[in-house]
């Protein structure tokens, strides 16, 4: 079968005589990879870079005539991030946590992240305006403000992190369940999640609310994850997803403390298998040295206390918080090994690959360069066993993995690494190779007809590590690990059009000045901040 490309799009046919050809017979051809959740740009990522010279100094990339130089490892510099994704055949990536006040920073970095199309999600779950309007029950007004915010920050989806907990953390507190009151605001995480879920629907956003649950990283939190999914059950319609639970591994802990920690993957998988309003991503742990970074300030502080490692906290007025702690996942650690197991259990126990996607919550559970390894684990029992044999014994005995026979095929891998993610994001032109799709193509040098990935997982892993060809927007940008062309990639954002946009009155400006320490005029990200702007118009129902 041939795939024809013209002007950056996949088309019915092209003039065969004049077309440049890539011979890919005996290889696997997939749409370019899509990453729904990876921290690659913005204030917390960059502070992570600054914090860790010792993470970079051994892992560098020299300048070439075609590429800029840079460093890795767990928090690569921007150019290197783009190149490394492109080498793996990824062409679209989503940066999941952007403090709105610092949105310009995120976009400046995205401009310098080449090779991929990208988008970013503003953090809205603890924004005072949201808390206040939801408290008052003014959903439509809330929706108007959210629309303004998404458009002003050039964002792509509503991100919620430890709802209510971050506002509490501003004064050193946290919330402990989805029904805890947020100090001062008198609202609960449940109300925030439900409220924003309704807002999301009112605004017709292409993706669902993107939720990092309360109690993340705490034993017993699988119940919080289930509560969070359940709390929007009634808001779902037409079998469409209404909520995305991100890096679910971190929210699937059973047990009452670290010693009794167990996997809650079975319970979560059971729920997800019986409901159609949820999508998840894995947040798969990799045994390596990495850097954790989330907007979840209190969680990061706990991690600092547990590990004794250096710690950065950065709270953002009126909006959110964030924290950073370097972290090493060790095979021989009981807790880490259980975490490793949970991620894979989730991916294998959830039957429908359109519901769970492959991520490491880069770099939280591991750097993205390890994706090929996860693909191998998903495709091969043998690959999983090879690791199981080397992990903490108690964890091995408690792992559900030995009882799981399922091995994903190439088709399913294509879903969990691109098609499913694109669909969940509502990216109509990504994640498939049909006519009209963006010409983002990854070609891997492995023959799906002849190879048995279950046995030959190492060959498969190697092929995924370095795409034979990566085509971005119709151009071959990488070949066998070599970057052939430095291309910019677009920044996708939502131009949310509401019938009655919020009015910027003097009163509003005054309120603005009270809440933030910047002037209203200087807050929004103007389109000139986006080097290659790709607005997506959304017509809201409000």
């Amino acid at each position: 079968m041939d795939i024809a490309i013209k002007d950056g799009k996949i088309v019915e046919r092209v003039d065969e005589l004049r077309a440049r050809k890539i011979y890919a017979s005996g290889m696997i051809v997939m749409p370019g990879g899509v990453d729904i959740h990876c921290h690659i740009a913005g204030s917390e990522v960059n502070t992570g870079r600054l914090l860790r010279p010792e993470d970079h100094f051994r892992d560098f990339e020299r300048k070439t005539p075609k590429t800029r130089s840079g460093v890795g490892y767990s928090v690569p510099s921007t150019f290197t991030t783009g190149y490394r994704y492109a080498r793996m055949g990824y062409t679209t990536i989503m940066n999941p946590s952007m403090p709105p006040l610092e949105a310009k920073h995120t976009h400046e970095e995205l401009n310098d992240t080449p090779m991929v199309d990208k988008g970013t999600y503003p953090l809205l779950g603890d924004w005072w305006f949201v808390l206040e309007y939801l408290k008052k029950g003014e959903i439509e007004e809330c929706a108007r403000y959210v629309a303004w915010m998404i458009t002003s920050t050039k964002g792509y989806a509503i991100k919620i992190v430890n709802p209510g907990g971050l506002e509490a953390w501003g004064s050193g507190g946290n919330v402990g369940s989805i029904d805890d009151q947020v100090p001062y605001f008198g609202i609960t995480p449940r109300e925030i999640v439900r409220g924003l879920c309704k807002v999301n629907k009112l605004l017709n956003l292409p993706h669902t609310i993107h939720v990092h649950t309360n109690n993340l990283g705490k034993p017993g939190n699988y119940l919080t994850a289930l509560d969070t999914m359940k709390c929007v059950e009634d808001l779902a319609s037409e079998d469409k997803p209404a909520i995305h639970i991100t890096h679910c591994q971190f929210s699937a802990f059973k047990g009452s403390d670290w010693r009794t920690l167990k996997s809650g993957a079975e319970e979560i998988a059971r729920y997800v298998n019986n409901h159609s309003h949820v999508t998840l991503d894995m947040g798969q742990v990799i045994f390596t040295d990495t850097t954790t970074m989330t907007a979840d300030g209190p969680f990061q502080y706990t991690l600092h206390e547990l590990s004794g490692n250096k710690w950065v906290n950065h709270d953002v007025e009126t909006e959110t918080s964030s924290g950073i702690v370097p972290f090493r996942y060790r095979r021989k650690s009981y807790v880490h090994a259980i975490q490793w197991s949970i991620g894979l259990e989730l991916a294998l126990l959830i039957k429908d690959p359109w519901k769970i996607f492959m991520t490491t919550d880069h770099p939280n559970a591991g750097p993205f360069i390890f994706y090929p390894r996860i693909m191998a684990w998903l495709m091969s029992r043998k690959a999983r066993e090879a690791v199981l044999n080397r992990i903490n014994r108690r964890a091995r005995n408690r792992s559900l993995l030995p009882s799981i026979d399922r091995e994903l095929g190439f088709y399913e891998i294509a879903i969990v690494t691109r098609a499913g993610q694109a669909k969940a994001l509502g990216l109509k032109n990504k994640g498939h190779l049909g006519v009209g799709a963006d010409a983002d193509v990854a070609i891997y040098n492995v023959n799906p007809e002849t190879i048995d990935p279950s046995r030959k997982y190492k060959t498969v892993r190697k092929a995924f590590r370095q795409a034979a060809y990566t085509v971005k927007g119709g151009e071959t940008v990488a070949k066998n690990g070599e970057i052939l062309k430095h291309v910019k990639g677009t920044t996708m954002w939502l131009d949310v059009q509401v019938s009655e946009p919020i009015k910027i009155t003097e009163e509003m400006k005054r309120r603005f000045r009270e809440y933030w320490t910047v002037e209203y005029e200087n807050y929004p990200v103007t389109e000139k901040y986006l080097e290659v702007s790709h607005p997506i118009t959304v017509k809201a129902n409000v």
Partner: protein
Amino acid sequence: MFKMINLYPLKKFRFPVIAECVSPDVFQGKNQKEIEELEIWEGNKQKRLGELFKVEETRKEQETIITVCGDVSKVRRIGAYMTSGEITINGDVGMHLGEEMEGGKITVHGNVGGWTGSMMKGGTIEIHGNASHYLGAPYRGSNRGMRGGKIIVYGNVGNEAGAYMRKGLIKIYGKAGQFAGSRMHNGTIHVQKDSEGRVGACMTGGKIVVEGFLESVLPTFTIESIKKKVKIEEKIVEGPFYLFLGDLTENGKGKLYVSKEKNPQLSSYEKLL
């Protein structure tokens, strides 16, 4: 197989020269020609070793022995990662000498730059001149200090010698700058002469001995006792010494021995004993 190689700098260097290749592990099994072809950087230009050094191959030896004759104070990273063999330098040498070294021996008849023996794991470095800052200390942001081996300095050393040290010995015959042994976990630092102060800041374990003058001990150290002598690697050093424990800020159990005789200003601590 093994041999003695002499290197003579062909000029006085002005730009930094990065010479990671000057290491017995790299030279071993290579003939003179191959050694001359090794990659080396002078400023922002890539060169061959032979362009900057005259390479001379002499007699056979038990091990690969490299002798550098002349001023190589701009030449950095000599002996980095080395695991065996010997390097002798007759002259001053630049930064990162023997960085992450695992074995073998480096002898310098001259002064050394900063980060000498940085993150070292084994082997010996002997310096007959002075050493600059960060002797045996880790790279920026890293807490993986010296994890073994021995550094002996016959002259003085700069600040933060032995920072984050975990194992091994640093012996200084001369004076030490500020913050010797800061954040050290284990291992031993022995300063025979004066110290500029803030010794053992934030240390959690290990042993520091100061035989000379130390104006004041950090307020976060507490006096434990007076010891007649202290043992450093089988050898007895005669005192008496004030023994302080600290650093309290890190709930540390580090031992700081300070000569009683040389430090009468510390006698006020005695009333606490």
